[in-house]
């Protein structure tokens, strides 16, 4: 915490110093003489630094928050799976991870720009394990319309939710949850001991999009799956 304040103090001092030098170079007066000018420089720089984060706030009309936790609860931390004879001994209910998505829309003019941008694009959240030693299967994968299987995990389509949000005005939060489990199958062969990380990603038309990252603020939580062989 102390370090953070020190960092903030140093960067701000540095910024003020640079601004002061820039303003000073425009006039030929001696240093630290014109008190009025110095005060104006300080005030202007303060307001600029206050306005920048405000614009940043405006730039994110949508926030997508992805939370993941084991069905057993937050305290369980990661998901641990015991393997015996190449089959999982941990029952399915304890291999289930609850993934919840919270989509918040803020009142912002950037919303219309985002919606126009999205018309021809498909926004999806990709959930895949890294390294890909395990397979993840969403519950009711064949009947839930938002979910689509990918090579090792699954996609969640967001377009529909964003379009639903477009019908309303003002700020609004929607949340949905998609539980998934680690697949146990005789076709899989596992290494002796493996730890995989599941970090949701947001992709547009199959790849990352930088323009959209200004408009959509994406916060995701990582989840670890650990496999042991006895």
């Amino acid at each position, binding site marked *: 915490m102390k370090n953070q304040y020190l960092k903030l103090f140093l960067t701000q001092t540095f910024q003020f110093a640079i601004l002061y030098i820039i303003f000073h170079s425009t006039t030929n007066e001696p240093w630290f003489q014109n008190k009025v000018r110095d005060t104006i420089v300080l005030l202007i720089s303060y307001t600029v630094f206050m306005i920048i984060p405000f614009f940043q706030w405006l730039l994110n009309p949508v926030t997508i928050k992805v939370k993941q936790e084991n069905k057993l609860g937050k305290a369980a931390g990661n998901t641990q799976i015991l393997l015996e004879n190449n089959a999982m001994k941990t*029952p*399915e*209910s*304890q291999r289930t991870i609850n993934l919840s998505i919270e989509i918040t829309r803020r009142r912002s003019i950037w919303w219309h720009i985002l919606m126009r941008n999205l018309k021809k694009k498909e926004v999806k959240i990709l959930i895949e394990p890294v390294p890909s030693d395990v*397979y993840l*299967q969403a*519950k*009711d*994968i*064949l*009947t839930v319309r938002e979910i*689509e*299987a*990918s*090579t*090792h995990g699954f996609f969640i389509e967001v377009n529909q939710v964003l379009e639903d949000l477009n019908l309303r005005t003002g700020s609004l939060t929607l949340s949905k949850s998609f539980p998934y*489990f680690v*697949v*146990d*199958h*005789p*076709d*899989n062969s596992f290494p002796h001991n493996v730890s995989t990380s599941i970090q949701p990603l947001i992709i547009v038309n199959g790849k990352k999009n930088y323009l959209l990252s200004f408009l959509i603020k994406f916060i995701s939580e990582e989840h670890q799956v650990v496999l042991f062989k006895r």
Partner: protein
Amino acid sequence: MENFVVHLYLTPNFSGSIPFNKRFFKLPSVPLAGLLKPTPALKNEVPFELRPFQIQQDNFYMFIQQSMNLNVTLIKIELEDMSDFEIVQDIYQAFKSNNIQEVKLLVEHLKREDIEVKSLSFYFEGRQYTVTKYGVLEITGEWIEIPQITESSPLAYITGTKVFPKEGLDNY
């Protein structure tokens, strides 16, 4: 009429239909494919990507609880742990005496104790079906009608292709 053992796989990133084949099929409406014998050679031959598919336990539990509603007769329930043999006997007994409430309670017990169902055999309209939790189906019939049976028989509830009906409302 022949007995077929079909291994189900998910087919991600693939949409479309494939021509008739004697060793595998792809369901038209859902990303599921069935392979007769999933040898590595056949897996390379199929024109789509395959990934393991596991049947979720909730579907098994729901199926046992609603079997009367779905007009199926359960023949055999195999559990993951052989020591839970007595519960299976109790479930059979409850079915024999038409005691649905008792069946529901016993299945709730299985759910609570995390006892997994390994496989399920049942009769429906004169045919016998078997499903295991690794997505292996045993169906009697002609090869041409197997995809259609997989999609329309009560098997579809277990595989998750169809949503279970609301109890007592199936006639409306």
